[in-house]
């Protein structure tokens, strides 16, 4: 295992300590329970919090700040946080207008957030939850744990964060969040595995000419293993199921999000974006907004995911609204 770390069990805390110093103007980091909270919390607005396992940086801690999240709760690497964290974060950001929990659809995340929400409710805080589940790699999910929440989570946090900042109430925030989730779809693939520090070895092994298609964001194997293919074929493999699932239609305006899994350089992401743009053009779908970079990652995994979000005017307005966080910033 080759990593820039000291001891595997201290990775999360030490990285949080670094974040706290690097972004002291934007965030405070609270330890035991661990959470990252926006400077000056609570604010006079709906509080928006998220959380999940660590190893997906910049998500979620990198999205805490003006116009996005009020707090983020980082668990151990790939392990959903515990209710104590979400409870403490919920209390810290509750400005009296209620708190929205943004949860990715994984059994652990859902259960831990649920327990926190119950505890917060017991303390008289109004909590609403939205669960993202945009990963089309998981088919026929009716009888299982359902689809995973992946790339859409990033877009949703920005959009609902802007709504909350603009004064939307809790019910409205929840409705917007659900609309974003309902109109977004994602799929990802990996060229290489990644290594959970405490596990010490990669989650799976791939030959030089193999890739995993339909992966999530936890270093797990994907839906299937395939021979390595050119970028344009990989782009088809990911975009096809996404487009067919919603389905996206000729004339749609979308936000096209090409996301790196952590170890893929920007030059490859822009190349993949070029392939995606070509596919969308062929289908007469307009790219109204785009995002290219490593935003929801699996440690050092090499790979890419596509997320498409069908936009409406309100979503565009909220996407364009000012945001100031460690990882996303514009308009201020």
């Amino acid at each position, binding site marked *: 295992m080759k990593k820039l770390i000291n001891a595997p069990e201290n990775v999360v805390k030490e990285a949080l300590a670094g974040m706290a110093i690097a972004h002291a103007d934007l965030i405070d980091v609270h330890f035991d329970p661990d959470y990252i909270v926006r400077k000056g919390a609570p604010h006079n607005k709906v509080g928006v919090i998220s959380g999940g396992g660590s190893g997906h940086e910049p998500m979620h801690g990198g999205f805490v700040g003006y116009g996005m999240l009020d707090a983020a709760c980082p668990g151990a690497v790939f392990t959903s946080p515990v*209710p104590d964290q979400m409870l403490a974060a919920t209390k810290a950001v509750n400005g009296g207008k209620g708190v929205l929990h943004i949860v990715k659809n*994984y*059994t652990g995340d859902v259960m831990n957030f649920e327990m926190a929400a119950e505890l917060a409710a017991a303390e008289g805080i109004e909590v609403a939850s939205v669960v993202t589940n945009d990963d089309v790699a998981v088919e026929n999910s009716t009888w299982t*744990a359902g689809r995973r929440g992946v790339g859409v989570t990033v877009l949703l946090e920005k959009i609902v964060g802007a709504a909350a900042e603009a004064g939307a109430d809790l019910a409205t925030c929840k409705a917007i969040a659900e609309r974003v989730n309902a109109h977004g779809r994602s799929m990802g693939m990996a060229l290489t595995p990644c290594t959970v520090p*405490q596990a010490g070895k990669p989650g799976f092994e791939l030959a030089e000419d193999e890739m995993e298609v339909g992966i999530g964001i936890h270093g797990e194997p994907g839906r299937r293993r395939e021979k390595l293919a050119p970028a344009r074929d990989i782009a088809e493999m990911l975009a096809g199921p996404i487009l067919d699932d919603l389905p996206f239609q000729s004339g749609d305006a979308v936000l096209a999000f090409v996301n790196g899994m952590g170890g893929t350089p920007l030059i490859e992401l822009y190349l993949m974006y070029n392939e995606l743009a070509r596919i969308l053009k062929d289908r007469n779908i307009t790219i109204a907004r785009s995002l290219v970079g490593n935003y929801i990652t699996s440690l050092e995994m090499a790979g890419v995911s596509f997320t498409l979000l069908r936009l409406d005017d309100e979503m565009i307005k909220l996407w364009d609204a000012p945001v100031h966080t460690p990882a996303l910033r514009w308009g201020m």
Partner: protein
Amino acid sequence: MPITVEHVTHFLTAAAELIHAHRDELTSLDAAIGDADHGANLDRGFAAVIARLPTVADKDIGTVLKTTGMTIVSTVGGASGPLYGTAFVRAGMALADRHEMSAEDVVLALEAALDGIVARGKAQPGEKTMVDALVPALEALRAALAAGRSLGRAVQAAAAAAEAGAQATIPMLAMKGRASYLGERSIGHQDPGATSTAYLLRALAMTCSRNEEEA
């Protein structure tokens, strides 16, 4: 000799040791069909439980078990944290204010634990989860006691059934938790949560057997 708080403490200590010893195995099982954290998760949780035990050593069994569950909820995370946490909390609620427990109480506690896991996780038997170890364990326990076996023998039978149940998850298609995302590829691997449940039952069997040997 009835089961006392000391026995419960002994059980939890044995459980922590077994989990720690099998930490890498549990993580490897989770790497195959999950996210490679189950060993580290439970090891962290049980280490926290052991650290907390002295603060409740003079309390009743229910309090010890509830504290165990709450500690697990607060330190494990992931799916197994709320599931095992709820299991211990429910078992503790079933034994509230009790300082001793009989064979029947052990059954009651395990039933409450299973109910808690199912209430939280909604898994049916056959979906490749810890439920597939706990359900046969409970059946074996009830059957052995009905057949007149001692508690020690009966819990040993339950532990064996849990282990068999864990192994029986190998050919199953996962329908719950993270392994379900793998679809068909989840087949052929043993479920990590069922495996850790089998270790917990083994720790319980060790405690109950020792109790009988001492008697």
